[in-house]
């Protein structure tokens, strides 16, 4: 039962206001932005009616960066300053990039930071900064389409992305001025797009072969609950590799030397892609390749030849398919449906191999390029609170095990892969020397036993341990993975209760200081005032908190006594008053006060939710009325 809300004159009660939040598919080759309008999720086109934004950024010596089609148009003339497929570099270290080096036509600056920077005429740029440009372009597009500024987004990532890659994505959003409501895995987003329309039950395989990443996930769908059973994949395999295979074939056929320059490689890749796309419908594609210096080559690629070139790549998707089936403990025949995602699944040979493997025709009625963005938009609409009665719930898992370095360069697993998130685990450590006051902790992600075979996420030192005899101290280190799949760490010495200071140094990420610096730089570029940015940020936070508390009061105000209610009301009034002014520090203080006043209320609401969950359940198992929030 809802309480009546009385609004002051001139103030609209927030919950009735229509809010927009977008879903963004930040892809290797193309990116999309989608939004729910009038109850329908659709991708938003640019002013020329194009939905796909090529994930390409060109930096110029003077003027801001150019993103998308305009950047692609001149890519072959300015290859070193035109960054494509940057997603492959997200959260990657210099060493990883060196390994990918063969297929990447950029020059990297060899700084001492673990994060690679791409050398451009506009200066060295991190992959996070490049991705932020793509997100900004999508944000601008959404604002133009919807007529309002967009601040909140659900951004999709491959289910297989590790912590560093997810963190890099979230950092890019922050740089672009977007609040990330949730990082959603791409296959789950695809299932949302299909599931909400058709409301299926059973086990679904989501086969996602995009430009640069492959993901396979098994999801169990049951009365609105989406549960990821298992996920696997390859974060460096996709349609781009097929283009490279075709380009290399052209080079062999045309007798081009192996040391084709960047510009020529670009042209070859473009021709390769066009041939691949043509062969989706046709049996043969003719090629006219400009080799520069007025030379050219003419030839033909048949579908059989194409299949021979790409078969080894498609075959690499099958072992991960086997692995998810095994992890989930089911056979291919028990899968109720296969959903295709990603542009590369348009290729007939891919469909053929997938059908063969799962023994059924895959589903593809939603455009495989758009399906992820559409699912993300549906989820964003729910998270922003437009559908409060929504039954859908996504239960996601971590794709890779999380472990710690122990003696002898070995890894001890703390949280195994495919564990449902959020998850929290604690591990106790002790000192091995008398009077030892610090301890080094190394966190890794991966399935292998040796530290050198896993991915280093962070190293940190626990300091301030009170000096004791060896083995006497008990340091409990807590690991928490949130709903976005991101790790945070805390530590405490148990015998004395001393909180140890933890400094997590991300192995491949940007530090908070670096992000802050980049934000300042980008603002200097846009000639915006630092002060006004801070004020705007606080105002946004204030509005968000006021709305959150007011809607919590509307739903569960009965849990408070008169005195507690009065304190919260005072906090709201205080924040509203501060919000009306232009003092960022005062707003921040008022936010803190209101947040503190709601502490008990929040705990009580959570407790009430647990009671409702069990009570409602016993009375009416899973009926829609039994599990609706009391709003």
């Amino acid at each position, binding site marked *: 039962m809802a309480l009546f809300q009385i609004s002051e004159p001139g103030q609209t009660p927030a919950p009735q206001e229509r809010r927009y939040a977008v879903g963004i598919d930040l892809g290797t080759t193309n990116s999309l932005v989608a939004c729910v309008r009038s109850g329908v999720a659709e991708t938003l086109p640019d002013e020329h009616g194009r939905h796909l934004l090529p994930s390409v950024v060109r930096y110029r010596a003077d003027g801001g960066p150019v993103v998308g089609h305009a950047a692609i148009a001149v890519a072959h003339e300015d290859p070193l300053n035109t960054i494509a497929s940057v997603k492959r570099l997200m959260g990657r270290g210099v060493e990883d990039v060196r390994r990918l080096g063969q297929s990447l036509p950029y020059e990297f600056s060899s700084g001492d930071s673990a994060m690679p920077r791409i050398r451009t005429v506009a200066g060295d740029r991190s992959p996070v900064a490049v991705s932020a440009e793509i997100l900004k372009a999508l944000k601008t597009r959404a604002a133009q389409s919807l007529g309002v500024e967009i601040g909140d987004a659900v951004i999709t990532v491959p289910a297989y992305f590790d912590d560093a890659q997810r963190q890099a994505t979230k950092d890019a959003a922050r740089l672009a001025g977007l609040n990330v409501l949730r990082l959603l895995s791409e296959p789950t987003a695809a299932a949302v797009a299909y599931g909400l329309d058709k409301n299926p039950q059973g086990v679904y395989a989501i086969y996602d072969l995009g430009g640069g990443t492959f993901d396979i996930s098994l999801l169990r769908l049951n009365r609105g609950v989406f549960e990821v059973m298992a996920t696997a994949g390859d974060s460096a395999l996709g349609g781009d590799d097929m283009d490279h295979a075709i380009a290399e074939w052209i080079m062999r056929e045309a007798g081009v030397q192996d040391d084709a320059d960047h510009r020529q490689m670009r042209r070859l890749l473009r021709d390769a892609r066009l041939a691949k796309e043509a062969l989706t419908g046709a049996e043969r594609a003719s090629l006219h390749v400009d080799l520069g210096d007025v030379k050219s080559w003419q030839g033909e690629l048949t579908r059989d030849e194409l299949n021979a070139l790409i078969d080894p790549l498609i075959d690499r998707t099958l072992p991960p398919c086997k*692995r998810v089936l095994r992890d989930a403990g089911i056979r291919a025949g028990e899968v109720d449906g296969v959903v295709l995602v990603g542009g590369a699944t348009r290729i007939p040979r891919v469909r053929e191999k997938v059908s063969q493997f799962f023994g059924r025709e895959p589903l593809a009625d939603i455009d495989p390029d758009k399906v992820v963005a559409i699912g993300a938009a549906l989820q964003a609409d729910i998270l922003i609170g437009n559908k409060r009665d929504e039954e859908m719930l996504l239960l996601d898992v971590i794709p890779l095990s999380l472990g710690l370095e122990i003696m002898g360069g070995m890894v001890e697993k703390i949280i195994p892969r495919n564990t449902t998130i959020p998850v929290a685990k604690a591990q106790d450590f002790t000192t091995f020397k008398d009077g030892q006051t610090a301890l080094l902790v190394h966190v890794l992600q991966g399935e292998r036993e040796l530290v050198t075979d896993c991915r280093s996420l962070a190293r940190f030192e626990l300091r301030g341990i009170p000096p004791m005899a060896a083995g006497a101290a008990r340091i409990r280190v807590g690991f928490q993975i949130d709903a976005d799949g991101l790790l945070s760490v805390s530590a405490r010495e148990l015998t004395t209760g001393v909180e140890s200071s933890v400094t997590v140094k991300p192995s491949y990420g940007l530090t908070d200081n670096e992000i802050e610096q980049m934000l300042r730089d980008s603002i200097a570029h846009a000639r915006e005032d630092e002060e006004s940015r801070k004020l705007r940020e606080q105002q946004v936070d204030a509005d968000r908190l006021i709305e959150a508390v007011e809607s919590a009061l509307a739903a569960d105000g009965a849990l408070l006594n008169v005195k507690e209610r009065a304190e919260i009301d005072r906090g709201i009034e205080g924040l509203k008053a501060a919000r009306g002014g232009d003092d960022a520090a005062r707003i921040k203080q008022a936010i803190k006060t209101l947040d503190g006043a709601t502490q008990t209320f929040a705990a009580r609401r959570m407790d009430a939710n647990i009671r409702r969950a069990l009570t409602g359940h016993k009375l009416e198992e899973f009926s829609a009325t039994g599990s609706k929030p009391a709003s």
Partner: protein
Amino acid sequence: MDPAPGKNHFELFGFPVKFDIDTDELAARYRELQRRVHPDKFASGSDQERRLSLQMTALVNEGFQTLKDPVRRGRYLLNLRGVDLDGETDTAMDPAFLMEQMELREELEGVRESDNPPKRLADLANRIERRMQDKIDEFRRAFADDVPEGTGKARNAVREMQFLEKMRREIDNLEEELI
């Protein structure tokens, strides 16, 4: 702040503290709890609510994982009875059980060189599962006797289950290599 002060996993899910549990009902209650406390329900909530929801959901997940799996459930029940298997110094085990484990282990090591590794591995996995079921029954009987002797037997059963579980993992790893 602790979102569910003093509640053990059984209480959190509204079950009596005992070994036998209706796993379908457990899964249903798990989903229902998730619907109520999951961070998605508080994405536009206050910082307080988001933090609590994160802690609570992690707790619900941990509880579900513990109660769902008989070995972990057994360990947890012993924990509630004050038996901490990690802190024990007396780790003596039944010699007959250890002998059997050595045999199973030798067999596992021989799988790779055998004529038909997948079949041998599957047979071995089946044997482990049967032994596991025996130990689960043993635990159930022993734990129902809330006397020191029963608790001791239950503790032994859990230790043996952990051995079998380790074998299970190694079989899994080998299976993965054979794919």
